[in-house]
């Protein structure tokens, strides 16, 4: 069934430990401790969007640990919640480790009731015990364990507190007898529906309740073993049962579960009233205040700009570019000596010369691809992810979602989309994957489109801000204005045109926390690794392509020159750029930041005017980000949708660039 295919394929002898829990309770932290494998951890609900698995030896037993996306209910309301439910339904030797937020016991219990109904053997870890205590929440773990009939351990996963007790209890999980009281009518319906439910990994009672709740995703699964007539009978039972209630059955069922949860909570939890707020709570409040939230946001933006746009893209890049790499015939630690060495070995003519040019020539792998990737893009991406990691772990992102919710509403989205959109400023490919946290297809399509169309990734952003540095504020403001204007217009139109509903904005706002340096460094390293694996090969391919085009003659000119001639009406005519800019767009198809680097070189050499810089920047920003992003678009949204988006974006980018050029010319503006 769906994404659980990988899990069913494993050896029977291996036990599976499935981590389940509400969003943002620390499942991924515990996963990391158990497996030693890093998965992205953040203070943002919904960071994990698919099952991550890793091997671990738990009490001397080989186990496969599965980290699942957070779910508030096992009756799924979004794609990531469905993934979690599906994994629970596959058979085999397994034990569930339910991770709960100690300060939100009631919500954990809502899941506990459902796990109990499934007849699932499980262990309950009440995580973030320290936060609960500081808020005056006390839970009697022993009483809770007796009440549920399963081991209950208080943990602080980030400090590894309680983890050894958790692993020890994984060998003796309990099957809980906790049940909700649904009343006679629903109990009868459960009995009737149960007759049709085929044997599977979980108790039929639980499946019957899912069906009575009207869980559509179950139907496809049932179809494999149940006839259409029987399906219709189930539907009939549901309708008849519904007639006894004025509220939807799913709601009646949820309420009964919450009543059961409340009964447990009232027995084991005490709360001391608090009169004081912590500093973190104050900051948390202010950062989403309608007025004080704005200076807060500006402060975040300005410090990000100084760190990423100024320090990383300016100081670091200059140092790496001029001092460390350098250029043939000029100063620098790497390129000049390397170029001399390679030239002396390979010579400048024949096959040797060809290879020499391929490595250190104008379109050389080292002089161009490696230099671009390491000296220009890497420092920018590194600093962006450091800042982004801090924002993520501090708990600021959901507060930013609160601040921008109103604006996002206008483009058919809501505040929830802020995470993929801001992550897009780091890497559009990663961001496109996280669109899974959005509940409706319509929103996922809009965000995917906007990311591909106009959200520049850190690499591109860094290069572009470096190009614009020293050209005054006008081009920068026009560029930002045009791009944001386009994003809003396209988003607004897409929201009108696309069928379907946008979802309600309901987002959990976790407490503000001091980010842990260790986690941020690990996370940044993981993201840089991803970046290098993804970008460097494309840089090398792009460079080899240019190199080949430069070497292959068509008639008396190289293919590169010929391409530039072909692109001339568009590049020179419409956009008003020099002919050589064609090659920027050729490589821009591979990665748009790579295209931007070409522009940076041309700008540094004084080969283009500020007007041309602006036109080129606007056009490149609106391009498809890179081949990797295109592939992820196809994977996440399907080939057809991805192709439609591409067919729209590429001509549209030139159209807007042309419009900017035309406007500047008509108004006789020289920037």
């Amino acid at each position, binding site marked *: 069934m769906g994404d659980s295919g990988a899990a069913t394929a494993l050896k029977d002898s291996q036990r599976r430990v499935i981590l389940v829990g509400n969003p943002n309770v620390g499942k991924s932290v515990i996963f990391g401790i158990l497996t030693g494998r890093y998965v992205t951890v953040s203070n943002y609900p919904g960071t994990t969007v698919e099952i991550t698995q890793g091997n671990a030896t738990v009490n001397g037993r080989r186990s496969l640990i599965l980290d699942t996306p957070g779910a508030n209910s096992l009756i799924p309301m979004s794609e990531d919640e469905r993934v979690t439910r599906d994994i629970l339904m596959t058979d085999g030797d397994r034990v569930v480790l339910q991770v709960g937020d100690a300060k939100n016991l009631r919500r954990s219990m809502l899941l506990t009731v459902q796990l109990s109904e499934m007849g699932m053997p499980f262990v309950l870890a009440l995580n973030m015990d320290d936060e609960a205590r500081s808020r005056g*929440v006390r839970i009697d773990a022993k009483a809770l364990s007796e009440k549920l009939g399963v081991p209950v351990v208080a943990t602080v996963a980030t400090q590894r507190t309680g983890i050894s007790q958790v692993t020890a209890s994984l060998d003796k999980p309990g099957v809980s007898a906790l049940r909700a009281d649904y009343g006679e009518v629903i109990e009868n319906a459960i009995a009737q529906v149960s007759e049709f439910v085929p044997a599977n990994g979980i108790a039929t009672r639980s499946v019957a309740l899912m069906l009575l*709740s009207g869980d559509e995703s179950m139907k496809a699964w049932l179809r494999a073993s149940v006839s259409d007539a029987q399906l219709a009978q189930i539907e009939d039972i549901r309708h008849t049962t519904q007639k006894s209630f004025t509220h939807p059955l799913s709601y009646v069922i949820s309420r009964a579960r919450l009543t059961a949860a409340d009964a447990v909570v009232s027995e084991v939890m005490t709360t001391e009233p608090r009169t004081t707020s912590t500093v973190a709570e104050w900051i948390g409040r202010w950062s989403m205040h309608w007025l004080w939230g704005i200076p807060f946001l500006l402060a975040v933006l300005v410090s990000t700009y100084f760190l990423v746009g100024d320090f990383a893209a300016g100081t670091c890049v200059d140092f790496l570019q001029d001092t460390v790499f350098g250029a043939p015939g000029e100063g620098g630690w790497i390129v000049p000596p390397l170029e001399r060495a390679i030239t002396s070995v390979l010579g400048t003519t024949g096959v040797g010369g060809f290879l020499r040019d391929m490595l250190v020539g104008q379109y050389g792998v080292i002089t161009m691809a490696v230099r671009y990737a390491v000296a220009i893009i890497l420092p920018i991406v590194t600093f962006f992810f450091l800042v982004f990691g801090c924002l993520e772990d501090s708990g600021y992102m959901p507060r930013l979602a609160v601040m921008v919710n109103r604006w996002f509403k206008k483009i058919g989205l*809501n505040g929830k989309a802020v995470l993929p959109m801001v992550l897009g400023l780091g890497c559009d490919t990663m961001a496109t994957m996280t669109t899974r946290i959005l509940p409706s297809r319509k929103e996922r399509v809009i965000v995917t489109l906007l990311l591909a169309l106009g959200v520049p990734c850190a690499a591109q952003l860094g290069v572009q801000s470096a190009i614009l540095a020293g050209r005054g504020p006008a081009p920068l403001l026009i560029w930002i204005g045009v791009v944001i204007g386009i994003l809003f217009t396209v988003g607004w139109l897409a929201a009108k045109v696309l069928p379907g509903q946008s979802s309600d904005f309901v987002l959990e706002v976790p*407490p503000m926390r001091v980010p842990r340096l260790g986690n941020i460094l690990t996370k940044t390293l993981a993201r840089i690794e991803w970046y290098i694996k993804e970008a460097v090969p494309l840089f090398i391919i792009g460079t080899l392509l240019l190199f080949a085009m430069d070497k292959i003659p068509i008639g008396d000119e190289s293919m590169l020159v010929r391409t530039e001639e072909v692109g001339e009406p568009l590049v020179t005519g419409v956009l008003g750029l020099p002919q050589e800019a064609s090659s920027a767009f050729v490589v821009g198809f591979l990665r748009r930041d790579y295209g931007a680097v070409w522009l940076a070189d041309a700008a540094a050499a004084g080969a283009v005017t500020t007007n041309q810089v602006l036109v080129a920047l606007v056009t490149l920003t609106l391009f498809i980000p890179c081949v990797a992003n295109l592939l992820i678009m196809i994977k996440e949204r399907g080939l057809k949708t991805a192709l439609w988006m591409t067919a729209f974006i590429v001509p549209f980018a030139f159209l807007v660039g042309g419009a900017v050029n035309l406007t500047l010319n008509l108004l006789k503006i020289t920037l």
Partner: protein
Amino acid sequence: MPAKSYEEKIDEILQSIWMLKEYDRTGVADLVEFCPEEGVEADLPGMVEGRLIRLENGSVDFQPAGHKRAEGIVRCHRLAEVLLTQLFGLEKNDIEATACDLEHAIDPRVAESICTLLGHPPICPDGKPIPPGSCCRTYEVTVKPIVQRLSDMAVGATGKVTFIAPSVHSRFDLLASLGIVPGTIVRLHQKIPAYVIQTGETELAIDKDLTREIFVQKQ
């Protein structure tokens, strides 16, 4: 049960027609079966004459005057139900007879006051719509409401959810999965730029649309 006046009987019949229409049933036969009054058929011609209803091919429909009167009766009945269950905490099964008596006793002005007091509830405890009065359209709040929409509660105030009346059914599930059901205590932290509420130790950012559909009793 004391004998009803003729007018009260007509009220009952009009109310039955209204309720049947909610299930898209308009047959005279349905009405005779559904209406608790005896000898309904004998009263129908008089009601036609009084321009309250019209009969066509064995089905019954309101004339404007009848529609207005039925609307008023249903409104009073359902408001009485909300008053008795939400405010006085009585069980739904115990109040039906009282609600039936009250519906005749409450005049439109008193109905407006009750409606305002209850925060202009859109539905009765059974989930059926309460026909809105003019007070709901202007959304009067001069009588201090006991039950109010979460969106109208003051920032910093705490309320207990009395009922949820979502325009979209899936919102029931969404809120329930976050632990928000009748009986839950919620605190309103802020309204702009987005609503932020707290329940237990969970803080939630939430659309205004949703907070309008959550009715709370201020604590």
